[in-house]
């Protein structure tokens, strides 16, 4: 300190009396320490790093700003910054690629996500922490800009949407704070502030943009084994996730983990039952048929177990019947969703991809068939207890709808067609439902974005988020 040139004439008062007292205290300590200076050794670098490990990020940033020495040592502790980064943000570990011709960002898992992961693993966590901190600081201002400059807010929308998951945590904090503030003020229960409404709108827009990007990615990936039937079903469910669901869970679209876990758990139940029965030694039965027999445990409502799925006959047009996460939770659904769940479980049990057979008015699952005569084919109806059907049974199902049966009707349909049919069912469900919630009004219009034959006339983000039903309609602010 004595080496710094100082000018007493520049003694501008630095702070108040407390600062003066603290400065005096520091000078006293400096004086005392000078006498013991000879007996103290320097800490090794690894000890200093261990001390820094205990500090929170604010203390680390303060320490970093003291001088060059600690600026260097704090910036180099990448594992510490990774811990702070993962502790502060639950979302935002994906990266986008730019597709200039469409004006939308596409998420490429195979290439850019892996590139980004490698870049971070090289040890750039401190810069990443700084970047996201600055990003968080800018979100509030951008939301206010959106409220004020609504008519010219496309650039601001773009600024918010382009960051995607990186700003989800910040938005959740802002919305939660506004909700708490609104409920605590007298006479404001049920009324939302503009900041809350805009924040929810942006959060919903980001959630649906991510779902839309995943949807497009699933249709673009050509390698079949990378994309499974349940991936598309989950993308549809992500499109549906509400702001309340996002706020409840730590990460956006967290139900994906639940779906994968649940499918794995149900597959393990079947595997354990097969092992107990030890049908492997019996040559008479086809292994796939063993699995089909055991799957009745999960789909036969008469088996009286909590794990059994049943077809939702009572409320057939409930949109939740088409969402895979809701079906797994409620153990009920419509034929197509139950068929997706059925094939996903069978694939996990015996690594066999069952076929989805799209009969007019009904969906069944088909055992893979490479024979000649259709009469020997086996089908399963998950909607009706997982019962095994024959070729003749399928023709009877079709004729029940007064449609003439044709052998092409039992041809397996592709994953894309299954997903398109699920979206069509959802749109039809909404048109049949009498929605009481005004916020949901016109939601099925935005579902049309998922249809392959829907011309995407949207050219910018402002049009996208202004599309009917894309985001929540604002509640009047009183």
């Amino acid at each position, binding site marked *: *300190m004595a080496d710094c040139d100082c000018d007493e004439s*520049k003694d*501008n008062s630095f702070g108040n009396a407390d600062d003066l007292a603290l400065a*005096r205290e520091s*000078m006293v300590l400096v004086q005392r320490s000078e006498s013991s200076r000879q007996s103290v050794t320097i*800490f090794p670098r690894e*000890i200093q790093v261990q001390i820094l490990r*205990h500090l*929170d990020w604010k203390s680390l940033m303060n320490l970093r700003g*003291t001088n060059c020495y600690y600026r260097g040592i704090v910036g180099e502790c990448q594992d510490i910054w990774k811990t702070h980064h993962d502790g502060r943000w639950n979302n935002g570990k994906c990266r986008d690629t730019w597709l200039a011709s469409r004006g939308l960002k596409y998420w490429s898992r195979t290439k850019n996500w892996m590139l980004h992961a490698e870049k971070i693993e090289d040890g750039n966590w401190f810069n990443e922490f700084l970047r996201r901190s600055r990003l968080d600081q800018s979100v509030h201002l951008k939301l206010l800009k959106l409220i004020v400059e609504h008519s010219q807010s496309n650039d601001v929308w773009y600024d918010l949407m382009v960051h995607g998951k990186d700003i989800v945590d910040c938005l959740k904090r802002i919305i939660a704070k506004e909700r708490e503030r609104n409920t605590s003020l007298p006479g404001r229960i049920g009324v939302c502030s503009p900041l809350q409404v805009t924040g929810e709108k942006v959060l919903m827009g980001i959630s649906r943009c991510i779902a839309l990007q995943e949807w497009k990615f699933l249709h673009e990936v050509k390698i079949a084994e990378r994309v499974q039937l349940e991936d598309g079903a989950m993308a549809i469910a992500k499109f549906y996730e509400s702001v309340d669901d996002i706020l409840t869970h730590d990460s956006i679209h967290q139900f994906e983990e639940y779906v994968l876990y649940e499918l794995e758990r149900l597959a393990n139940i079947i595997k354990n039952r097969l092992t107990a029965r030890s049908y492997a030694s019996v040559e008479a039965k086809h292994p796939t048929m063993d699995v089909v027999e055991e799957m009745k445990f999960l789909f036969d409502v008469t088996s009286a177990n909590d794990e059994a799925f049943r077809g939702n006959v009572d409320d057939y047009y409930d949109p939740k019947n088409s969402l895979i996460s809701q079906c797994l939770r409620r153990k009920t659904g419509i034929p197509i969703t139950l068929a997706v769940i059925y094939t996903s479980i069978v694939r996990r049990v015996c690594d066999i991809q069952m076929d989805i057979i799209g009969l007019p008015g009904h969906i069944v699952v088909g055992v893979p068939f490479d024979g000649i005569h259709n009469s020997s084919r086996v089908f399963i109806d998950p909607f009706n207890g997982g019962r095994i059907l024959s070729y003749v049974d399928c023709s009877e199902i079709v004729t029940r709808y007064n449609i003439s049966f044709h052998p092409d009707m039992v041809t397996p349909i592709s994953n894309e067609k299954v997903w398109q049919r699920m979206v069509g069912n959802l749109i039809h469900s909404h048109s049949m439902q009498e929605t009481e919630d005004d916020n949901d009004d016109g939601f099925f219009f935005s579902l049309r974005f998922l249809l392959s034959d829907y011309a995407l006339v949207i050219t910018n983000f402002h049009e996208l988020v202004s599309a009917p039903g894309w985001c929540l309609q604002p509640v009047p602010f009183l």
Partner: protein
Amino acid sequence: MYDACEALRDSLLALGAVRSQSYVSKEGDTFEVPIEIAKLSNLVVTTLGEDEEDDDMDLEIPLPNVKATVLAKVIEFCTHYKLVEPTTPITTPLKSNRIGEIVQEWYPSFVNVDQTLLFELVTAANFMDITALLDLTCLAVSVLIKVRRIHIFVVNYFCLLHIPPIHYVPSRGNRRKRFVEYLTSRRIRYLEDKAC
């Protein structure tokens, strides 16, 4: 509680009921510690090595970097850790500014010493490779950084750590520079007032 540990330890040594390990401090003072307590130090474990079971060996471990007062504190810690209760695992980053909310009751009072002694404990724990003591003392130092204003601690920290003057140059910003100038000018005035 410590008196009971110390009494137990001394009585065991006096009776010859346990093998002991001798430490020699910087000043030449010898401290005898039961071997099981001494084994908290990885330095002892590696020094004894395969000769651990040889009762004829009377090995003294010299600690030229550790003062007697510091060594006494280290032995106090090891005795309590071994005979009473070990510290609870310390998670990072800290959830609280109070050490009492992170570890058991005895340990905050153990590290509630002046900074010189605390830093010497860190150095001794590092030299003797006592993981639990090193974790606790590093925790105490980090709590000091958290609770104090950073510039006050930095002044103490740097002075005690012998960091050369070149590192005292502020990294950036006029505010830091003005603060350093202010502190220096106030120091001069303080010393002048004291002289008067």
